């Protein structure tokens, strides 16, 4: 067997057709992708999902909740997973609706295996990027939490573009104190420059509008 190219990723397949599920699993396994299959949306939601980069291959026509409704439900619950739709009979409005709601691809059955594998790779890559972005922001938030309230306040003013003198006026502090706070903010946040700090403030979401 080849070395697994993406060891820590998983494809979820939801299709009511057992034979289709098996075929999908076999196909993904042949290229070394780990696949987990489910017969319905409810079954997918009940299962404990590994916290790794993943993507969801969803049949439009499902028992109970339809694929498109399921997509809406996931978005509402803020579960961000890239979705690839497949359908036995799709029409244009259905496709448009799915793509607008952020689907990666809409594949009519029977599909070319390469199309499906490409779409799955795109989905997993996108999920990985999203996860990394989220992790970076979580780090920033942790660093921001280590700042004292005063330092957080100073960071707000600094990133809003105020000069030290102005900040001192606003906070009724000596300019030298502001400078000290500012230095510790830069150090604790790990910012190399003011621009860096401003970007961090944006990511954490504390930047005031000047």
């Amino acid at each position: 067997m080849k070395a697994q190219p993406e060891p820590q990723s998983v494809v979820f397949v939801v299709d009511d057709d057992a034979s289709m599920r098996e075929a999908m699993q076999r196909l993904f396994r042949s290229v070394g992708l780990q696949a987990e299959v489910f017969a319905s949306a409810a079954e997918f939601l009940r299962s404990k999902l590994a916290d790794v980069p993943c993507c969801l291959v969803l049949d439009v026509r499902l028992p109970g909740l339809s694929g498109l409704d399921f997509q809406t439900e996931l978005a509402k619950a803020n579960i961000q997973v890239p979705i690839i739709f497949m359908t036995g009979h799709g029409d244009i409005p259905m496709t448009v609706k799915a793509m607008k709601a952020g689907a990666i691809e809409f594949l009519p059955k029977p599909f070319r295996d390469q199309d499906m594998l490409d779409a799955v790779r795109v989905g997993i890559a996108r999920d990985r990027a999203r996860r990394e972005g989220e992790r970076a922001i979580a780090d920033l938030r942790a660093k921001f939490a280590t700042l004292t309230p005063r330092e957080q306040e100073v960071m707000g003013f600094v990133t809003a573009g105020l000069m030290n003198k102005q900040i001192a006026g606003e906070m009724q502090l000596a300019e030298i104190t502001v400078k000290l706070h500012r230095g510790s903010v830069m150090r604790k946040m790990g910012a190399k420059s003011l621009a860096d700090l401003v970007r961090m403030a944006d990511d954490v979401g504390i930047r005031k509008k000047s």
Partner: protein
Amino acid sequence: MRLLGRSRLTARILFWVICTSVLVFSVVTAFTIWQEREGMFLKAQEDAGRNVSRNIAAISIALWNFDKITLDATLLALTQSGSIVRAEVRDPQQMVSEVERVDQRGKPDAEWEVPILGPDDSRQIGTLKISESYAGVRDFVAATIATRLVSELTKIGGLAALLFIVIYSVIARHLQTLAREVSNLKPGDVLTPVRLQRKKVWRDELDTLVESINRFRSERADAEDALWATRSELARVTQMTTMGQMAASIAHEINQPLGAIVANSNAGLRWLAHEPSDIAEARAALKQIADDGHRASEVIGSIRSMFKKDGHEKTLLDLNDLVRDVLTMADAELRTQRVFASTELHEGLPQVLADRVQLQQVFLNLIMNAVEAMGSVNDRARLLRVRSEIHDASGILVTVEDSGMGIDTKDRDRIFDAFFTTKSTGMGMGLSICRTIIEAHDGRLWASAGTPYGSTFSIALPTADASGKS
């Protein structure tokens, strides 16, 4: 009288006019005659009085002289004419003279006495007694009443006749026409405006009425047209939607195993391409492919059997009614395409046991096909004829004939195949489904060339009795 019977309105008007005028004329005539009679009585009395006073001097002298001859002559003169029928003269002691009219019968109506005075007017020398009878006046009045009655009745009769002619010719006959026209109104009639037989338009109430009826009729016809158009459009859309849904469902059912087959074969190929090849995985994939192939075949089989199922509700139907219903459904289309539809339906057709909706679909499909086939016909009439007849012992034959373009001989065997179509817009499913439905009813559907042109579609169906036995 027949006219009167037809026009009850005129009869009623006449009845009341005659009743009222007879009553009024009778009262007036009776009053007049009574007054005249009173006058005549007074005049007769006056005449009698005047007659007596004119002759009283002669009577007095004759009595004074005791000239009986003159007295008799004078009394005779008195009783000769007028109402005085009897006169007698007596002196204080005895009857002197008495004269009575010869034709007098019965008792007199009035009697009165006049004193006779002497020449010096100082002394009463006798009495003149007068008897009066008004029989003459009575006879005269009776004669007058009869004459009057006849003349009044003649007048009333004449007036009634005149009134009848006027009312009938000016109002009643037009009202009859209107009533007939309005009561004959049926939905879907060919529209001919109501017209009254009058020399010119008077712009009176009748003309206004006719105008509004005509306007109402044309508005109603428009509304009916719109309704029919909507209804047939709806039927068509429903049919299309059902077809579309069915197609989607079939596509889904078949694409499911097809998708699995393709995915499995791709996976199998990839396992074989591995170094070394994974034969076990590839074999499992191939086995799966075989299973899915069978599954796809089963799906198609179940779709075919869906049309053959006896699960549909079969009821006893009169095919003639069904044909008429379908022609009504297609009416708007026939009208807009200027197709003249006629039927030759054999009355008393035995019933068939069939699914009404399915048979309706078949007939509607055949009729619509016929209409479409005649769409490009402009040099001859667009004729659609539906005939029903009893076909051998246990079957009914219904034919749908058109005068359209006909069917190409080379296509005749293929038109019933699924997905075969000669139209630019069409799935080629119509006739195929029709034949499936008819065959599910143990019947036959075939096409033949029409004479001299067009085509004929024939449906043979067993009667309910025959299909019950089989």
